[in-house]
C-alpha cells in the first residue's frame, strides 16, 4: 500500500501538482442492534480505498479509488488533477498552505481489549441482559440496545515528506427504554442518547459503562416520566448534567469556532459564525471561569487522534480562555488566510472517499472549583437540573439555541425535588456562557463521544468528543419547547 501512495505522489508531481496528499484507509466495522429481547440488526462491514487530494495552480482537487492497483491509482490521480485544474478557473486567490513540519511517525489509539476478538455472543449477552431488565419494568413499551465497533488503519503520505501510520479502535454501547401510554411518549437513554456512549477505546469501555447495572433505573425513569409534571415555563437557574453540557459545547462553542464557517466557506449549508476574526482575542464569550479547549490529544476521546487528515500533529488549542474568545479550529489553508503560524490540526474526513474538512476534535469545558454536582445543587435556591439530550437546534450563526432533555428535576432551596418531563431551555450563546457561575470539578468530568456531527457538502458524519463537568447558568429561559 505504501508503494501505491508513493506512486500517487510521483504521478501528481509529474502532472504539475504543487502539492498532493494520499490517505489509504482499511476499515472494519460491526453494528449490532437489539429490540426488546431479539436481535434486530447485525451489520458488519469492511472498506479499503485511497483518497487523493492535489493542489494545481492554486485550486483543490480530490478523487478517490478502491482500485488499489498501479493503474487504478494513476487514473484517480489524473482525475484529481483534472478536477483541480477546473477549480483553478474559479479562484479569486490561490490556495496557500500554512507551514507544518514533516512528520514520519506512527500512532495508535488506546485499547486494552480489541473488540474484534470478543465473540458476538458475548456482545449480545450484554445487550440482552440489559433488555431483560428493562422489559420487565411495568410500563416499558420498547427497549432498544446498540453496540458499534470500528477499526481503521490509516496511512498518510504527502509530497512534503510526511509519512504517518495511525490505528484507531472506536467502541460504543447504549440502551434506551421507551414508555408510551394513551397520551404521551417518553424515553430514557443510558449512558447517553443517540447511540449511547462512544469512545476511542476497546471492549473495556463496555464493561466500564455496565449497561445491565443501569437498566433498572433507566427503565423506571422512562415510566415515571409519563406521569411527571411538565417542566414549568419561566426564568430559572439551570444546572446541566455533563452529557447535555457536552452537546451545548458542541453546538455553541465547537461549531462557531470552526474557521471555515467564520470565513463564510460553509455558509450555504452548515452556516457561518458570529465568531468572526475581528472578535478574536476581544469578545467576552463567557464568564471568567469559562475555559474551553480543542484538545485532540485527550486520551480515549472519540475526537482525538495522532495526526489530522492533512498530516498536522494533534494539538491543544485554547478556544476560550478566562472567558475571552481566543482561538479557532483550523486547517492549513484557512490558518493561512488569517495569518496563523500553523493549522490547529482539525482536518478530517469520514472516509477515504471524502475530502477532509475542518471538524471538531475534543472540545471541552475545563473543570471548575465547585466540587461535586451536589455542591452546586445545595447552593441553588430556585432552579432546574436537566440531563441527557433529547433535541437540539441552533441558528446558522450559532446565536439562538434551544435544547430539550430527556429528564429534569426541580431544585428548591438547595435540594433536588420533583421530576419534570419535557424539560427545555434556550438562549443566546454569549449571554448564556456569560451567565455561567459554577462548574463542578475534575471528579465529575466525563468526556462524551458525539459520533453524528454532520457538516460539508456532500454531508460527512464525524467523530467528535466533548469533556464537561456539570455547570450552573443563571437566569435561563426554561420550558420554552411548547406550543402556546
Amino acid at each position, binding site marked *: 500500500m505504501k508503494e501505491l501512495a508513493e506512486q500517487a505522489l510521483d504521478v501528481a508531481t509529474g502532472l504539475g501538482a504543487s502539492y498532493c496528499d494520499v490517505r489509504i484507509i482499511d476499515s472494519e466495522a460491526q453494528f449490532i442492534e437489539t429490540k426488546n429481547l*431479539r*436481535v*434486530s*440488526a*447485525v*451489520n*458488519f462491514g*469492511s*472498506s*479499503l480505498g485511497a483518497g487523493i487530494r492535489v493542489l494545481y495552480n492554486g*485550486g*483543490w*482537487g*480530490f*478523487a*478517490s479509488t*478502491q482500485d488499489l492497483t498501479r493503474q487504478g491509482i494513476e487514473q484517480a490521480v489524473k*482525475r*484529481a488533477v483534472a*478536477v483541480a*485544474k*477546473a*477549480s483553478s*478557473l*474559479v479562484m*479569486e*486567490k490561490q490556495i496557500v498552505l500554512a507551514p507544518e513540519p514533516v512528520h514520519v511517525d506512527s500512532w495508535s489509539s488506546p485499547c486494552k481489549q480489541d473488540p474484534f476478538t470478543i465473540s*458476538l*455472543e458475548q456482545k449480545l449477552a450484554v445487550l440482552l441482559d440489559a433488555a431483560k431488565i428493562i422489559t420487565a419494568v411495568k410500563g416499558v413499551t*420498547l427497549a*432498544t440496545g446498540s453496540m458499534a465497533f470500528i477499526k481503521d488503519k490509516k496511512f498518510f503520505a504527502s509530497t512534503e515528506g510526511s509519512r504517518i501510520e495511525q490505528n484507531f479502535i472506536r467502541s460504543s454501547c447504549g440502551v434506551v427504554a421507551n414508555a*408510551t401510554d394513551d397520551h*404521551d*411518549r417518553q424515553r430514557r437513554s443510558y449512558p447517553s442518547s443517540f447511540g449511547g456512549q462512544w469512545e476511542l477505546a476497546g471492549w473495556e469501555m463496555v464493561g466500564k459503562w455496565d449497561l445491565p447495572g443501569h437498566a433498572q433505573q433507566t427503565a423506571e425513569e422512562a415510566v415515571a416520566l409519563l406521569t411527571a409534571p411538565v417542566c414549568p415555563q419561566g426564568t430559572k437557574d439551570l444546572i446541566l448534567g455533563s452529557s447535555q453540557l457536552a452537546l451545548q459545547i458542541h453546538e455553541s462553542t465547537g461549531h462557531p469556532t470552526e474557521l471555515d464557517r467564520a*470565513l*463564510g*466557506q*460553509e*455558509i*450555504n*449549508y452548515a*452556516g457561518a459564525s*458570529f465568531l468572526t476574526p475581528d472578535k478574536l482575542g476581544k469578545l467576552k464569550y463567557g464568564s471568567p471561569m469559562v475555559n474551553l479547549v480543542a484538545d485532540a490529544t485527550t486520551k480515549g476521546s472519540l475526537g482525538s487522534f495522532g495526526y489530522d487528515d492533512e498530516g498536522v500533529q494533534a494539538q491543544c488549542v485554547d478556544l476560550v480562555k478566562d472567558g475571552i474568545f481566543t482561538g479557532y479550529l483550523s486547517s492549513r489553508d484557512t490558518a493561512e488566510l488569517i495569518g496563523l503560524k500553523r493549522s490547529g490540526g482539525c482536518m478530517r474526513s469520514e472516509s477515504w*472517499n471524502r*475530502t477532509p474538512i475542518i471538524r471538531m476534535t475534543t472540545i471541552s469545558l475545563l473543570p471548575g472549583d465547585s466540587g461535586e454536582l451536589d455542591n452546586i445543587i445545595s447552593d441553588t435556591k430556585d432552579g432546574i437540573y436537566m440531563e441527557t439530550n433529547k*433535541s*437540539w*437546534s*441552533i*441558528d*446558522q450563526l450559532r*446565536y*439562538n439555541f*434551544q435544547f430539550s432533555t430527556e429528564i429534569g428535576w426541580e431544585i428548591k432551596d438547595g435540594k433536588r425535588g420533583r421530576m419534570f418531563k419535557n424539560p427545555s431551555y*434556550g438562549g*443566546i450563546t454569549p449571554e448564556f456562557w456569560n451567565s455561567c457561575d459554577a462548574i463542578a470539578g475534575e471528579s465529575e468530568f466525563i468526556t462524551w463521544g458525539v459520533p453524528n456531527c454532520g457538516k460539508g457538502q*456532500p454531508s460527512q458524519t464525524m467523530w467528535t468528543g466533548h469533556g464537561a463537568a456539570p455547570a450552573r447558568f443563571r437566569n435561563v429561559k426554561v420550558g420554552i*419547547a411548547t*406550543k*402556546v
Partner: protein
Amino acid sequence: MLTEQQLKTLIDTALDHARGKTDGTEVHVFSSDYATSRFANNSMTQNQAPMHTSVSVRVLVDGKQARLTTDKLDPDNIRNVVDKAIVVAKLLEKDPKLLPVLSPSGLPPIKPVDRYDEKTGKLSPEDRAKAVTSIISVGKPKTLKAAGTYSSGVHLQAMGNSAGLYRYHQETGAGCSLTMCASDSTGWAKQEQPHVTALHQVDMAQSAASKAVGSANPQEIDPGHYTVILEPSAVLDMLGMLWHDFTGTSYTDKLSCFLDKLNTKVFGENITIHDDVYHPLQAGAPFDGEGVPRKKVTLVEKGVVKNLVHGRRSAKEFGVEPTGHGLMEPTSQGEYPVNIVVEGGDTSLEEMIRTTDRGILLTRVWYVREVDPTTKIVTGMTRDGTFLVENGQVKHGVKNLRFNESIIEMLNRVIALGPSVRIAGEESFPAVVPPMKVAYFNFESTTKF
C-alpha cells in the same frame, strides 16, 4: 463506472458461492460516480470526484440472518464475505419472524421509470466550473458573494437473491444549492434533478440574489403568532419530521404519532399526501430493499390518515400486502416512505402575498428538530430570506425567528396551497410539495441577524 453486467457478476459471485450453504442469500451492489464542486466567497473551495462501489450480502441460515458489506470487490473477498456472514448468522438466536428471501413468482412487474440522462452523467469538471462561474456572475454586479455547490453524476444499484429475483436501477443526478451573501442578509435556492436540463442555476442565482438584496438591513419584529407563507423548501423541511410516523414499524413500536388514529381525520380537509415513486417529478428506484415493487400509497386523504407503508415483515404483522417501502434487512427501522408527494392547490405565491394583511414569508427553515413526539411539536429557525408582508406586499427583511410549532396543528391551519413542485431542502430528501399559507404560526424568539 461499472457496467450493469459487472454489477451482475458481483452478485452472481456471491450467490454462486452461497449456494447450498444458506437457506437464502440476497446481494445488493451500489455504485456511484458523483462529483461535487463547492464554492464560497466567489471561489472554488473544494472540488471532489469520488467513486465508490459496495457489495452487501445478507444470508439466512437456520432461521437467522446477518448482513456483511464490503467495497473490496475481488472475487475471493466477496466469497470470504459470504462465509463470514454465515458464521455470524449462526451465532445468533433464531428469529421467529424471519421471512425467506423474496421470490419473483407472482410479483407484479416493475413499472419502468426513466431517470437516466447520458448528458447529465457525462458532465465534466469544466462543465461544473462553468456552471459555478455563471452563478458567481449573477451576484458580482450587485457586490454579492456566492457560495454553494454544483454536482452531477451517476448512481447504479442492482440486487439479486437465491430465489431468482433480480433488480437493476440506473439514475443520474444534477444538483445545485446556492447562497447569495450581502453584508447583513442572504438569499438561498436549491434543486436536485435526475436530468441536468431541469436544473436552471442562473434562475436560481437570480432568485437568491433578489432575496439577499430584498432582505438587507433586516428589522427585528416581536415573536408571537403570525400568518406565514412557506415556500416549498420550508414546507418540505417542516413536514419531513412526519414521514417516519407513517411506517408500520413505528406504529408497532408505539413510536408513531398516529397511534389509534388510522382512518381518523388528523389534518385539515385540504391535506392529501401520497408516497408515489412513479410521479413524474419523483426520483429513485421503483423497488425496495428486498426487491418488492413500490406501490403508490395514499398516506393522508383530505386530512384522514389512510395508510402506512410496510416492508414485508411489517406487512405480515399487519396482515396486509407489503407496499414496497422496506429497508434492507436486517433493520430496526423497518421501512420508510421516500417518494413523498403532497397535493397542492391553485393559489400562487404572489396571490398568497397579495391576500395577506400582516404575515411573514419564509424562504427556508433550518435545524428543525422534534421536541414532542406525540403532538409533533418541532422547533427550528428561519433562514436566508425572511420577510415581513404587510397590506399584500413584501415590506422588508426581518431578523430570523425561532419557531415551536406542532406539525399536526399547522396542517389544520393551512389556508392556501400553491402548485406542487419538486424541491430540495436540508432536513429531508427531495419531494414534491406545494407552498403553503398557514394561520397562527408560533414564533418563540428572535436572533441577532
